[in-house]
């Protein structure tokens, strides 16, 4: 056991730290409210990703031949820690970078790789994930969006829901049913769908946080050619699992950047809001809550480092992803509740700190639902890690 960085890890860190020192936009001060649908904000983040790309710092985990750096898992964690340390903006094309890209690298054709990978890295192509449907959420394999064959082509009809970033996305990783007769896991195909194609309609759904992070997406006679199949026809479940494993396998390293910044802001705020005529930061109960938030975040960091070590020895992502997802999503909800308790009615104001606390509290409510609910994660841990008998 040695938690010190190796010389090459240190070199990597120093190089990125130096780059960030020169390139993090000076006006960036944590992003304020940070709601997800502000076009301007997105354009800003796109420009930031472009800058990272030009510097060779986008998609660092990808193999060199596809424009990445072939960074080790630990280097990816260092990358995230350095982003946090430098107070840098997050990356906008996360679905492309962490979910679609690795799946194309694993299962895509040469043509698909050449067409999409560079664009994902540069932020020129924003992707969304068209998995969930009104009647297929946790039971994703029950999805019914229909793909009928017309010669070589597929004609798509159906609806997706809760599709984050669809309103700005250029492409969609789409799951469709190609064989209605086969058992449910065996009739699914994964397609790379052009969101600008005729017959695609996006209708933003308003989240409880007030913004439109996710959408309904309707497909009406949308034609998609055979070169757009990712993986094999009727083997889309394998593709979907590869994508979901990659989604969870980033192990929350990216999101820690945001958590750390929020906690620092909360500690600073606790010194300015009052409790019984004193700064809240002097109140023993407030101190208990801040310390609990601190220690839970610290444990997320440590769990991540352990998971990264075991992943880099084992290779493919496994159930670690479920443990991490369960932990960070529930931790984040507790922390935002502490923030509300500490800030009192200020925490609910839309103009206090640009509404950051009000927004964060509401947005975190979705954390235990998106990317697999906490119940589903617990099922996975119980059955795949602990080996308990299946419940259904």
């Amino acid at each position: 056991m040695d938690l010190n960085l190796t010389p090459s890890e240190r070199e990597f860190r120093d190089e990125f730290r130096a780059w960030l020192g020169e390139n993090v936009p000076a006006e960036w001060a944590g992003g304020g409210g940070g709601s997800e649908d502000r076009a301007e904000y997105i354009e800003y983040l796109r420009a930031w990703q472009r800058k990272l790309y030009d510097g060779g710092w986008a998609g660092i985990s990808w193999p060199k031949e596809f424009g990445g750096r072939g960074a080790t898992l630990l280097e990816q964690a260092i990358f995230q820690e350095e982003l946090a340390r430098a107070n840098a903006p997050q990356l906008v094309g996360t679905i492309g970078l962490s979910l679609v890209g690795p799946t194309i690298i694993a299962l895509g054709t040469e043509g698909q790789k050449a067409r999409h990978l560079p664009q994902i890295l540069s932020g020129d192509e924003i992707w969304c994930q068209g998995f969930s449907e009104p009647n297929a959420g946790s039971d994703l394999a029950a999805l019914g969006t229909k793909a009928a064959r017309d010669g070589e082509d597929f004609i798509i009809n159906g609806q997706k829901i809760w599709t984050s970033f669809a309103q700005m996305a250029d492409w969609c990783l789409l799951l469709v049913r190609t064989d209605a007769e086969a058992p449910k896991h065996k009739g699914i195909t994964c397609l790379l769908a052009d969101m600008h194609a005729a017959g695609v309609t996006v209708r933003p759904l308003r989240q409880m946080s007030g913004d439109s992070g996710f959408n309904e997406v309707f497909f009406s006679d949308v034609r998609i050619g055979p070169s757009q199949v990712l993986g094999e026809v009727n083997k889309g479940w394998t593709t979907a699992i590869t994508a979901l494993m990659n989604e969870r396998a980033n192990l929350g390293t990216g999101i820690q950047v945001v958590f750390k910044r929020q906690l620092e802001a909360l500690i600073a705020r606790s010194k300015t809001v009052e409790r019984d005529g004193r700064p809240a930061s002097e109140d023993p109960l407030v101190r208990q809550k801040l310390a609990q938030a601190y220690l839970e975040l610290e444990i997320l960091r440590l769990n991540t480092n352990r998971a990264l070590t075991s992943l880099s020895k084992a290779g493919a992502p496994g159930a670690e992803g479920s443990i991490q997802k369960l932990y960070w999503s529930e931790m984040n909800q507790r922390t935002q509740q502490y923030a509300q308790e500490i800030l009192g009615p200020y925490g609910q104001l839309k103009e206090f700190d640009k509404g950051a606390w009000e927004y964060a509290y509401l947005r975190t409510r979705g954390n235990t639902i998106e990317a697999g609910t906490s119940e589903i994660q617990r099922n996975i841990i119980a059955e795949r890690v602990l080996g308990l008998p299946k419940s259904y």
Partner: protein
Amino acid sequence: MDFDLSKPQKLLKESARALLARECGAGRVRELMETETAHDEGLWRALAEQGWTGLLVPEAQGGLGLGLVEMAAVAEEMGRACLPGAFLSTLFAAALVERAGSAEQRAKYLEPIAAGELKATVALLEESASWDADALKLEASRGGGGFNLKGRKLFVPDAGVADVLVCVARDGDSLVLLPVARGAEGVTVKPMPSMDATRKLYEVRFEGVSVAESYVLGADGDARGALQGASEVATAVLCAEMVGGMQWVLDTTVEYAKTRQQFGRPVGSFQAVQHMCADMLLMTESARSAAYYAAWALTERDPSARAAVSVAKAYCSDAYREVANRGVQVHGGIGFTWEHDLQLYYKRSKSSETLFGDATFHRERIARLVMSDE
């Protein structure tokens, strides 16, 4: 970076598990908890023969001179076995001597400790039951070329079997560390029967006990620093021990959930049960990350070490209790019996929760460390 035990560390852990399974099965634990001190000379010898009583003791004093990560690996197995007796108390006292003692004093205490010939404990808590050194009141009065002790200490672990009690007392604004033989004139040791009978607590009374100047530890004036350093070491080791206890509860509970049948199927197929088990795993693994990080950070003298110890103890205190709670719940009625070994761990989780400061105490320490403006 490699956050995993090395091969030799894993081997050490495995051999600890094997030895403790042999020498300290649940039956033996139950026998010992019924005795007055929970100490067994044969078991102690077995630990000493492995070198564990001197695992952290420098080689110069006859120890193995290993680091805290190795100690944590062994302690985890001790916690899994619910090892009774004075191991942790002796480790705490040894860490104190190592930090505060002169070369002569270190030789005097550490050599026999490493050899398994001396057991010790630290007499710290008083009526306030506070782990904060500033809360100590017992005053050591100067006189006769040394100090005089009059007063009492409470909740002193293993005082009934320790050969030496290191009493932490006040000397004006500073602290003094006074080693006193259990059998010395004026010392009375009285049991304070408590929930966890595997780790016995005592009241220790000092009635005009005199300690010669040459015996006093930390004569160079940094008794407070030594106490803090030794407490951090003992706390990190306790956390590792707690992880081992959690792992036992988790393993035992999952095994039971796979075999116990109700409604014609294993209870482990019910989601309410599965989800409790999943949470137990999450807490156990999180506690493990925190405990080993604290052990590593202390060994490396990492600047984060102090906070890391409090993070670990605050988390482990809550997590062990919660894991034990769910463990009993999943077992149903059998889990509530005296017969089932869960009771040993349920109680150990409670006594460990308060030992060296509970979660509330350590969260305040964290707050002081991370909220200061420096």
